[in-house]
């Protein structure tokens, strides 16, 4: 630890702020700069101008500075335009390079610009709970808390279909009030967006008047909202419901006389109308009377929307509930015949009132449950399964005479039965009797032979012929066993259609052995057909080719296996250990010239021409190295015309070019379509070439 760290390690450490213990340190202000305040050796310090540009470059940090003050600009300050080829797209078509005013400012201008900027809030900031022109409150600190424009809530609401000026909530069905005068003209109701409850406006109480008393009417500042408009709105809970508006008619308070400024805008109370002002109210307690008139709140159960907390006595509440005026929580009346419950008391289980009636003792239902009924029912299939009788005993039980029929197993040989047992997996098959067929039904000799024929595995005739021809040409499998080879030959001869006797079999062998051997022959014939056959079998149609083989192979298995991909015969031959001709093939190998040189041998005739090293091949061999060269046509030293001329001069007929001879059938010297075609009319020539002047001539 005490050892001195090398400078490189120290600096590597510094690159990520050594004093930042928690969190991610900010990247350095500029590359290579160190903001840890540590000492930087002089040779590492950099001179920059006031705009942070490197001033000294190279040559012991002395002089050389690239461009104009290390910029791509020039002394005039213009940024040279990038070169645009005028061939396709002209420079004037190209978009002019964007230039900012800063590009044309010098340091002094920039400094002035910096100084002229000062920090202040944007005009767009609005006060909290802005009703229109709450100018007086704008100066408050609240201004800082809320921005104008669309808040996220507004954006969300708009996405949900809300629009400015509408209220929030489900749509309300009401009459359209097109015109205040024509109100109630039509009875049709429509769905309307609810009305917009105004924002809660907190009115700061600065006077010493009683709560709710707004004092004498007086002239107001024009910007101030008229107090009358706020009449129905509570300072806390907003506007009262529209239906209530008519009912609450506030008495005009005020001093002596009513001015035009007291006008509420409603026509039905003319301040100048004559008549007793019964609603002239001078006492504060005037509201008490109105409380009786208060209708029950409609259309909403939200207590916040009920204008003011009103005391409702228990009696009234009870009367209401019995009257059935209460509404469900969604604001609708309960369904016909239903009454809203007062409490959950009546529904409690402990209540004796709704106990089910007592079932008398000893009572039995006349009906039976389904489970009891089906219990002793047994389906025929189940009964048959449960029964241990076999057909014969059942026949005996029924008193039927024994049928003369016999089981198939009575005629089967034990081997056949064993095979069935093996395939089905059943061990309880009846024993094989291997009876002879009854007289008259015995297999004739030809039938028997046909049966045996069915056992001979199928082989494509073509394959058999090919295998045979290969055998004729000198090679045949089973070289070590002459007898087997003879049997193999007879088998493929039969399959090739040259013989029609049954294939030979090893004397004393069983039919099964015979069949197995023949299947082996079929496979061998498939493998050892000559190369042309191999190529042909690669392109067999899906329905014919390999299916034959797989049929032969799978004839004894009940499940059909998908035909295997034909294996390379060489591989299959190698797998059965038959090495030799089948597994060996020779190809041409083209060693490169250099390789032959390195091996110190004369290159073979067909040596591969190495294009990258063409230098070491002589000019004579260049066009004759053959092999891969497609362009092996010898180049003519003299052109054919020159050659012909020489020939003519020497008094001989020029030799017709072989190319021309090949093209002869196409060319007909006697006949030229272009010359012999009918001459078109003069009009056409005129139209093409002629002008009117020529015509006149």
């Amino acid at each position, binding site marked *: 630890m005490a050892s001195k760290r090398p400078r490189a390690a120290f600096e590597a450490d510094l690159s990520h702020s050594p004093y930042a213990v928690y969190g991610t340190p900010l990247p350095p202000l500029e590359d290579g700069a160190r903001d840890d305040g540590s000492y930087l050796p002089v040779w590492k310090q950099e001179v920059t101008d006031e705009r942070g540009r490197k001033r000294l470059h190279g040559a012991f940090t002395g002089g050389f500075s690239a461009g104009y003050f290390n910029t791509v600009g020039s002394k005039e300050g213009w940024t040279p335009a990038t070169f645009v080829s005028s061939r396709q797209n002209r420079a004037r078509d190209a978009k002019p390079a964007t230039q900012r005013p800063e590009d044309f400012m010098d340091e002094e201008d920039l400094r002035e610009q910096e100084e002229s900027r000062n920090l202040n809030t944007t005009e767009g900031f609005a006060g909290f709970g802005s009703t229109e022109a709450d100018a007086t409150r704008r100066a408050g600190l609240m201004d800082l808390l809320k921005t104008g424009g669309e808040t996220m809530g507004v954006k969300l609401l708009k996405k949900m279909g809300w629009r400015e000026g509408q209220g929030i909530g489900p749509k309300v069905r009401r009459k359209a009030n097109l015109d205040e005068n024509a109100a109630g003209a039509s009875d049709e109701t429509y769905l309307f967006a609810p009305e917009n409850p105004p924002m809660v406006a907190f009115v700061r109480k600065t006077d010493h008047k009683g709560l709710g008393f707004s004092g004498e009417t007086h002239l107001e500042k024009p910007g101030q909202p008229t107090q009358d408009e706020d009449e129905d709105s509570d300072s806390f809970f907003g506007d009262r419901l529209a239906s209530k508006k008519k009912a609450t008619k506030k008495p005009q308070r005020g001093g002596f006389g009513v001015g035009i400024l007291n006008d509420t805008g409603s026509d039905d109370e003319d301040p100048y109308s004559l008549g007793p002002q019964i609603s002239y109210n001078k006492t504060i307690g005037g509201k008490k009377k109105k409380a009786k008139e208060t209708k029950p709140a409609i259309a909403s159960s939200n207590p916040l929307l009920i204008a003011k907390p009103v005391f409702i006595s228990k009696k009234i509440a009870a009367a209401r509930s019995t009257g059935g005026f209460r509404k469900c929580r969604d604001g609708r009346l309960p369904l016909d015949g239903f009454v809203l419950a007062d409490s959950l008391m009546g529904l409690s289980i402990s209540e004796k009132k709704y106990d089910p009636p007592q079932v008398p003792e000893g009572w039995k239902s006349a009906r039976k449950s389904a489970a009891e009924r089906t219990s002793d029912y047994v389906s025929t299939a189940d009964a048959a399964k449960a029964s241990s009788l076999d057909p014969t005993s059942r026949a005996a039980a029924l008193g039927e005479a024994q049928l003369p029929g016999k089981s198939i197993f009575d005629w089967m040989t034990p081997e056949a039965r064993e095979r069935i047992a093996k395939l089905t997996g059943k061990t309880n098959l009846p024993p094989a009797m291997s009876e002879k067929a009854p007289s008259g039904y015995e297999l004739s000799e030809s039938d028997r032979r046909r049966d045996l024929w069915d056992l001979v595995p199928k082989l494509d005739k073509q394959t058999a012929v090919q295998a045979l021809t290969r055998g004729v040409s000198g090679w045949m499998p089973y070289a070590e066993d002459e007898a087997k080879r003879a049997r193999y030959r007879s088998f493929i001869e039969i399959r090739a259609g040259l013989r029609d006797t049954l294939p030979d079999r090893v004397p004393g062998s069983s039919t099964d052995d015979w069949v197995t051997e023949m299947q082996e022959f079929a496979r061998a014939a498939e493998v050892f057909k000559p190369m042309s056959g191999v190529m042909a079998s690669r392109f067999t149609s899906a329905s014919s080719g390999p299916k034959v083989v797989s049929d032969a192979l799978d004839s004894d298995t009940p499940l059909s296996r998908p035909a295997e991909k034909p294996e390379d015969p*060489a*591989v299959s031959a*190698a797998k059965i*250990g038959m090495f030799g001709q089948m*597994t*060996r*093939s020779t190809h041409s190998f083209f*060693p490169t010239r250099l*390789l032959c040189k*390195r091996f110190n041998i004369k290159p073979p005739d067909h040596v591969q021409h190495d294009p990258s090293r063409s230098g070491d091949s002589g000019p004579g061999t260049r066009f004759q190295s053959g092999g891969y060269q497609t362009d092996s046509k010898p180049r003519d030293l003299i052109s054919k015309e020159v050659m012909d001329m020489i020939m003519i001069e020497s008094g001989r007929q020029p030799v017709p070019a072989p190319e021309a001879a090949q093209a002869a059938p196409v060319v007909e010297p006697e006949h030229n379509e272009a010359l012999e075609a009918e001459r078109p009319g003069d009009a056409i020539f005129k139209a093409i070439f002629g002008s009117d002047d020529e015509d006149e001539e």
Partner: protein
Amino acid sequence: MPAIKFPTRHLHNLKTHNAPVNAVTFSSYPGTYILTGSSDRAIHLSRAVPNNAGNSTQPVETITPIQRYEAHGYSVLDVAVAADNARFASVGGDRQVFLWDVEQGSTTRRWTGHTSRVEAVQFAGDGDSVVITGSADTTVNLWDTRSKDYKPIQSLTEASDTVSSLHVHMPSYSIASGSYDGHVRVYDVRMGRTTDDVLAHPVTSIRCSADGNVLLASTLDGYIQKDSISHATKPRHTYRNAELRVRSVFAQGDGVVLSGSEAAKNDTSLGAAVFAWDVLTGEVVATVPMDEKVKVVSCVAWNPSGHWAGGCSDGTVRIFG
């Protein structure tokens, strides 16, 4: 030929590597030294038989090699020594082919043309001027040691799977290659002919006899084949080689086939062994069992002076004589 008894005395135990040994090669005549390439990415040069080995009955142990050659980034898979003992070539899992100077202990040439693991390397050509490599990218590349060309002289692309083994028989100017696609291809450079033999099982080792008439091929079905170039015969020997690359060589003047083997999979008590067969009769001449710890003897090498070595999976190289 079996008149000479097959040497089975354990002379020397090299414990220089700490990972399985993949390649063992005796230096060219007289084969005093042995080069071993291992999965620990190093190639070690050691004395094949120390001077005092003949006296004691117990095998001599060597822990430090004479020289270490370290440049490979992955396991070293094959090593070949030039005839003049001045250079050797090594290949490895890092797809590189290195040509080393034995005395300097540094690489003189690096070829990076292979795109996959390089499995086999051999010297060829007049004065060992060509390095032949077989790779898991299915190509055999021939590199020129005399030019600075970074490209191979030629690339043989006939194989369809990893070329696992190579052997060059210079008297007949032929290159034999064995591949995991089950083919043995013999390229006759002089005649411009390729002989393609199908063995149907992945070939892990290929070797030509000294007269060039017989090819020895190990396949993953557990057989070693002596495959005559003129006519194919098949003396086959049963031993276990099913999963890994096990090399086999001719020994005792082509009279004996020597091969490593894998330990039995289910039987952990027995280790791998080195088998030796008589070429003509196919009878086992000797079976030299290794320790129980040794699971595979992946490579064997025969030295004409009568020693042979086996590289074991526990990192040891055992030299018998």
